């Protein structure tokens, strides 16, 4: 009789690991192995069509990167890209959420429709907006010419001063539904008794917004912004479809530059080094997010 508890005790710690192992194994194979390989390539001369010349070069790629003009241009664009896109998406998403939280006929339909940009594939969005911006047939130029806002049609994507911002606007359009939906869910979780109490105390609508709505949404907002920063930072598909990083370097962001070095120059070593550098920079945001995620669970 005394055997059972001891055997039970001995078995117990194994079972969770057995159950976890498939997930851990898959993660190791499809995430950690490529990650290690990228780190390995980043410290080697690794041009794919020169298989005889693959050799260890320590940190030469990293040194090159810091003196590479395009690296700094891309880094600066990445900063603009992330900060503008995420804040515009947040602002637009917030406004949309507040509108959708009002009572109006066909509200359910409007809530469904707002998801559309988020649900479209990025390549479709990229192609669609390239036509919107097209100087010959684009609807944007047509509008602006008709209303006299422009005198000559503007090649939005071929002009280095506007190309990056044109794509940022596209990505804002694509990503704001994510914020709208997250914030809407947050809004609906605020008990209406708070507002009733505030109203009794004579708080204005604005005071209610600042002292009830915003603080209650804080958790949702911070999590959504952190997640969005990581996604927007890494998103290159829309840029690639719309301009491939051009004209010149005007729409190069760091992940796109890494991608172009890797796949058009076939320089896997330098491309990986750029990717590793960018990962290190993003790690700060990732750590912040993981801390929050961990806190939510416990």
């Amino acid at each position, binding site marked *: 009789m005394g055997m059972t508890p001891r055997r039970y005790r001995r078995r117990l710690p194994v079972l969770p690991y057995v159950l976890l192992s498939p997930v851990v194994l898959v993660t190791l194979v499809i995430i950690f192995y490529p990650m290690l390989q990228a780190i390995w390539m980043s410290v080697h001369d690794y041009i*794919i069509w020169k298989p005889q010349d693959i050799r260890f070069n320590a940190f030469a790629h990293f040194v090159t990167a810091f003196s590479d003009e395009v690296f700094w241009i891309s880094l600066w664009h990445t900063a603009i890209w992330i900060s503008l896109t995420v804040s515009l998406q947040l602002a637009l998403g917030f406004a949309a959420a507040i509108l959708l939280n009002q009572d109006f006929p066909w509200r359910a339909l409007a809530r469904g429709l707002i998801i559309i940009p988020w649900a479209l594939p990025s390549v479709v969005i990229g192609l669609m907006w390239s036509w919107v911006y*097209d100087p010959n047939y684009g609807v944007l130029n047509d509008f602006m010419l008709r209303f006299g806002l422009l005198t000559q049609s503007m090649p939005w994507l*071929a002009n280095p001063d506007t190309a990056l911002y044109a794509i940022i606007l596209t990505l804002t359009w694509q990503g704001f539904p994510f914020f709208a939906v997250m914030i809407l869910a947050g809004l609906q979780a605020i008990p209406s008794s708070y507002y009733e109490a505030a109203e009794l105390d004579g708080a204005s609508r604005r005071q209610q917004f600042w002292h009830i709505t915003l603080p209650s949404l804080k958790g949702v907002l911070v999590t959504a912004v952190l997640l969005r920063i990581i996604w927007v930072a890494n998103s290159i598909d829309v840029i690639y479809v719309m301009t491939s990083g*051009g004209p010149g370097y005007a729409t190069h962001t760091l992940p796109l530059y890494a991608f172009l070095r890797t796949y058009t120059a076939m320089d896997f070593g330098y491309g990986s080094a750029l990717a590793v550098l960018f990962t290190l920079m993003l790690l700060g945001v990732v750590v912040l997010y993981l801390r929050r995620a961990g806190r939510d669970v416990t």
Partner: protein
Amino acid sequence: MRRLIASVFAGALLFAGFGANAEEEVRFWFHFDNPDNPISQLVSKFEQENPGIKIKAENIPWNTYYEKLNTSIIGGNPPDVAMVKLFALPQLLEMGALHPLDDHIASWDGKADIQDELWELNRASDGKNYYMPLQYVVLYLYYRKDLFDQHGVKVPTNREEFLEAAKKLTLDTNNDGRIDVYGFGMRGAKGGHDHWATFVLPNGADINKEGGLLTPEAIAANQWFIDLHRVHKVFPPSAPNDGFKEITGGFKAGRTAMTIHHIGSSAGMVEALGDKVSAAPVPQGTQGAWTAFGDESTAVFSASKVKDAAFKWVAFLSSGDNNVEFNKASGQLPVTKSGSAEWTLHEKRFVDATVASLPFARTLPAKPQTSEFVGSSWPTNMQRALLGEISAEEMLRNIDNLYFK
């Protein structure tokens, strides 16, 4: 239990062995924009004529074609046969990926039917032939015959005439103060190096020699080309980002009076513009003319275990009716003499412009760097130069560095 496993294993081995003996499988990679392509008919015809060989054909999207091909070679699992272009040849050779076809070709009875120039153009730097010609095009000048007649402009044969024509045909047709037609639809995005090369290389610029792009004549020629956009404004303002669909679309829509492309787009041009579109060889430079030879070949990979079967498929695609069928779908020109003789798919004026351009049709340097030149170096530097971010000389220096540093 162990015996059971052993016998299952042995059975599997036996089965696999039988499979290999009975049938050889040739994996074939190709890219075809046209989803209505004739590959499956050609495959079944081939399999009927060659019992024992199965073709496993895969259509790989063009945008990532060479990325996939290169990674499959590095990964040790390339296809047996793939469609390939000349610019990729030096890299494929450097990787030791290709199997020389000379012995196979020598004993192939279709050899004499292939156009002679194509063997020459396809020959690798080591003197061997790794590529079997499959289709070809030559770039020429498309122009709007009606606009040329209307404004009394003659078809340009050299740079001066070209500039004059482009200026005269940059028009505000409805007098609203906005330009509606631009002289030349220039391709500033990836793939536009052919436009640039036509106007820069035959003017004292040698891309094959170190410093050959840095001569005063070369820099002046590049400046002349950049000025078409910056000074004379004969390109649409979107030119730095324009790719294939913009230049052909702009020309078809009547937004440009000239552009450079090949016979593959002629059917669409005629559909949109009818008799208003015609073609001529590109304008000459100070030292003759330069136009791009656009090619597509097939190659057998050195890792293939079924090289003889693979060559049979390669030869099949480049002979007689099969090649004609293939090119009817691709819209390019057949590589055989017999196929060209009775070619009726394209209107004569475009075939004539192609044939007249063959004597000065060239390819880019047969060097591994050419892939990067085409894929990123040229477009980035050209765009920056067109936007005034770098000078004509800096652009050429960057290209010289790519090839020789």
